[in-house]
């Protein structure tokens, strides 16, 4: 699967512009990624990739990179384009 799908999920859930760079985003690193948006992001990731994240993973999901790693743990490997 393409990493682009995760980028789109981030942009949509965090209400960022279509071309926003998200690969280096960190939780609370931008105003829009606050704890409320975090829940939308988690729900959006779960919907898009058909996974269920545990509480630990929701708390651990502190960056775009970590999201990618957590998805990998769930068997969703995202390839960079």
């Amino acid at each position: 699967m393409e990493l682009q799908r995760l980028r789109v999920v981030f942009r949509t859930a965090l209400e960022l512009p279509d071309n926003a760079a998200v690969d280096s985003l960190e939780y609370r690193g931008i105003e829009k990624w606050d704890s409320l948006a975090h829940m939308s992001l988690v729900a959006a990731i779960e919907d898009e990739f058909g996974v269920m994240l545990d509480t630990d993973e929701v708390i651990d999901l502190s960056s775009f990179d970590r999201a990618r790693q957590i998805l990998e743990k769930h068997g969703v490997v995202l390839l960079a384009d």
Partner: protein
Amino acid sequence: MLTDVFTRTQPEKEERLRGELVELLGHHRRHCPPYARILDALDQDGEPATLADLPWLPVRLFKTRKLSSVPDDEVIRVLTSSGTTGEVSRIHLDRAAAATQSRMLARTLGTVLGPRRLPMIVVDRSGVVGDRRSYSARGAGALGMVNFGRDHLWLLDADDRPDVAALKEFLGRHGDSPFLVFGFTFMVWRYLYEVARDHGLDLSQGILVHSGGWKKLVDQAVDNAEFRRRLGADTGLTRIHNFYGMVEQIGTVFLEGPEGGSLYCPDFADVIVRDPVTWREAPIGTPGVIEVLSTLPTSYPGNVLLTEDLGVVHGVDDGHWPGKRFSVLGRLPRAEARGCSDTYVGGRS
């Protein structure tokens, strides 16, 4: 019930905590000049021999002073708890402290919730967290809990009326397997218990986590025992865990055990109940002022705090989990009146 944070007997805990807290207090002394001046003024000699010898700060000091042990540019969150007189505690968290507090809160509540996120009923309205800039402390409390759930139902509508149809729909979808309920104690009573009772709804698969104190239920003669009894009898809800915590020790919660009636201290925290006249530790069974100790505060000197709450220790190493078990009895009479849901994790009614 498996746990990894309610494991240590009181002697083990005290030995370990004493060393860790001495270290942390030294750290704050070196990095927070106002705190160093307070300790200097106390003029304590030598290494504290017991946890009770550690110097405590009155919790309200965080309302009048900026007490932070990290440079301003490393602070990523400033938490506030509002009191009704407008005085506000300000708690400064750096990235490490913020991460630790949410992780340890998760491990503590994970003891009763398990690792999976359960379908969740929040006994509040979604608007309570809607305004991201200025959400109330009540909103912050709910927000801190939503990580533990999924498919959230916000039970109240914009006018604070319970949405019975949505509740029935939620129970139709999720009511046959464990689900999580979170709310402030009096709101759970008023908006969930009474509605479920009147509509004959089955909450027997629920796990309720609640906080905020009993003050608003006093006129209905509802205390912890009655709360548990009636929820069980009228709705089937028996897995009920009250908790006690405060924004000044964010991430640390003292959790009611499955048997009900006692709050327990996680391994990284403890309580001491003090006689308000002599300030000596009160004997088991004797009420006094609650001091809370926790190793979680690393970015501000909040490790050893004298609260404005009254409590009583019921026993030590004789309950469902090891360590002290205790109850909160209410606010100190002279303490500032605070709305019970206007505080971060409540417990300070």
